[in-house]
């Protein structure tokens, strides 16, 4: 898949948070086969080395990083955080999050479009985390986003795709845009579901990190993403309201027309 002109082999992107330990995180990321991981930018305590320790592990994985603006509630905060991320990680990529509602972590789509415009004009390559709303996605694309990342359901909820019709519409209306389902996926089948809908990739964190066995779950998601993608490319049969027999009717033994 193409992300701002860069070819990425895996269609699975994973987060680096919430794992039971750094060692499990490292093993799970390797098992996922992901080529891109999300990271954040946070204040370091005086004399602290937590950031260095984490960064060494990520560097050892040889993956690309996609820094986020998680926790930002205003355009100003998100833009300033993106600038810190670019300075720190040396990448123009930014997963842009502007939180609109504390309870659902629903993106503030108005602020998102505004922040995306500012950052794109400043040379960033923006990966906006948004809702399934078509016109918001269109505004993001008009602003210059070449990747759009709608949610499946709220972050960390594990509900899977709750508005299938809208996600299908988004895919149909934005065929040229790289679309990644980000947030809300709880099971490998949810990831396969997104890929079967024709999404280019999926981004998830909690479903792997909070599994009983994160490493095994990472592999399960990798398989599901691949299965869903191959299934999509193979062309799914259209769903029908009624049964149609798969076994030929002609030649059925003991069959006779009347009585």
């Amino acid at each position, binding site marked *: 898949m193409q992300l701002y002109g860069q070819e990425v082999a895996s269609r699975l992107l994973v987060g680096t948070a919430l794992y039971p330990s750094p060692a499990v995180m490292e093993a799970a990321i390797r098992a996922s086969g992901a080529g891109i991981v*999300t990271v954040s*930018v946070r204040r*370091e*305590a005086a004399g602290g080395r937590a950031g260095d320790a984490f*960064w060494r592990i990520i560097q050892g994985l040889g993956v690309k990083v996609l820094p986020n603006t*998680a926790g930002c509630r205003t355009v100003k905060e998100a833009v300033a955080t993106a600038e810190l*991320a670019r300075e720190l990680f040396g990448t123009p990529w930014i997963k842009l999050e502007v939180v609109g509602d504390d309870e659902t972590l629903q993106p503030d789509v108005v602020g998102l479009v505004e922040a995306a415009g500012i950052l794109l004009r400043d040379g960033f390559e923006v990966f906006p985390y948004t809702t399934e709303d078509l016109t918001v996605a269109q505004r993001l694309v008009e602003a210059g986003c070449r990747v759009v990342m709608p949610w499946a359901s709220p972050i960390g909820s594990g509900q899977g795709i709750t508005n299938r019709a809208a996600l299908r519409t988004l895919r149909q209306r934005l065929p040229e845009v790289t679309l990644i389902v980000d947030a809300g996926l709880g099971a490998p089948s949810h990831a396969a579901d997104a890929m079967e809908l024709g999404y280019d990739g999926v981004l998830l964190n909690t479903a792997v990190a909070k599994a009983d066995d994160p490493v095994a779950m990472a592999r399960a998601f990798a398989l599901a993403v691949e299965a869903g993608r191959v299934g999509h490319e193979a062309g799914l049969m259209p769903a029908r309201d009624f049964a149609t027999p798969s076994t030929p009717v002609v030649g059925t033994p003991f069959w006779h027309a009347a009585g």
Partner: protein
Amino acid sequence: MVVTVNGERAEIGSARIPELLAELGYEGGFLAVAVNREIVRRARWAEVEVTEGDEIEIVTPRQGG
């Protein structure tokens, strides 16, 4: 002078970022710095002068989703 570092009051002796980081125990870390919400690129750390009351952010990579 008194400045704010990561939201907390801090008393510092040096106005230049490299010395200030060393003073606060951040030396050698993989980090980014902003003063009054403006990024100070690493290449410019020695040029910028911090003044009384400035708000300094010192950040590092962290786990994220």
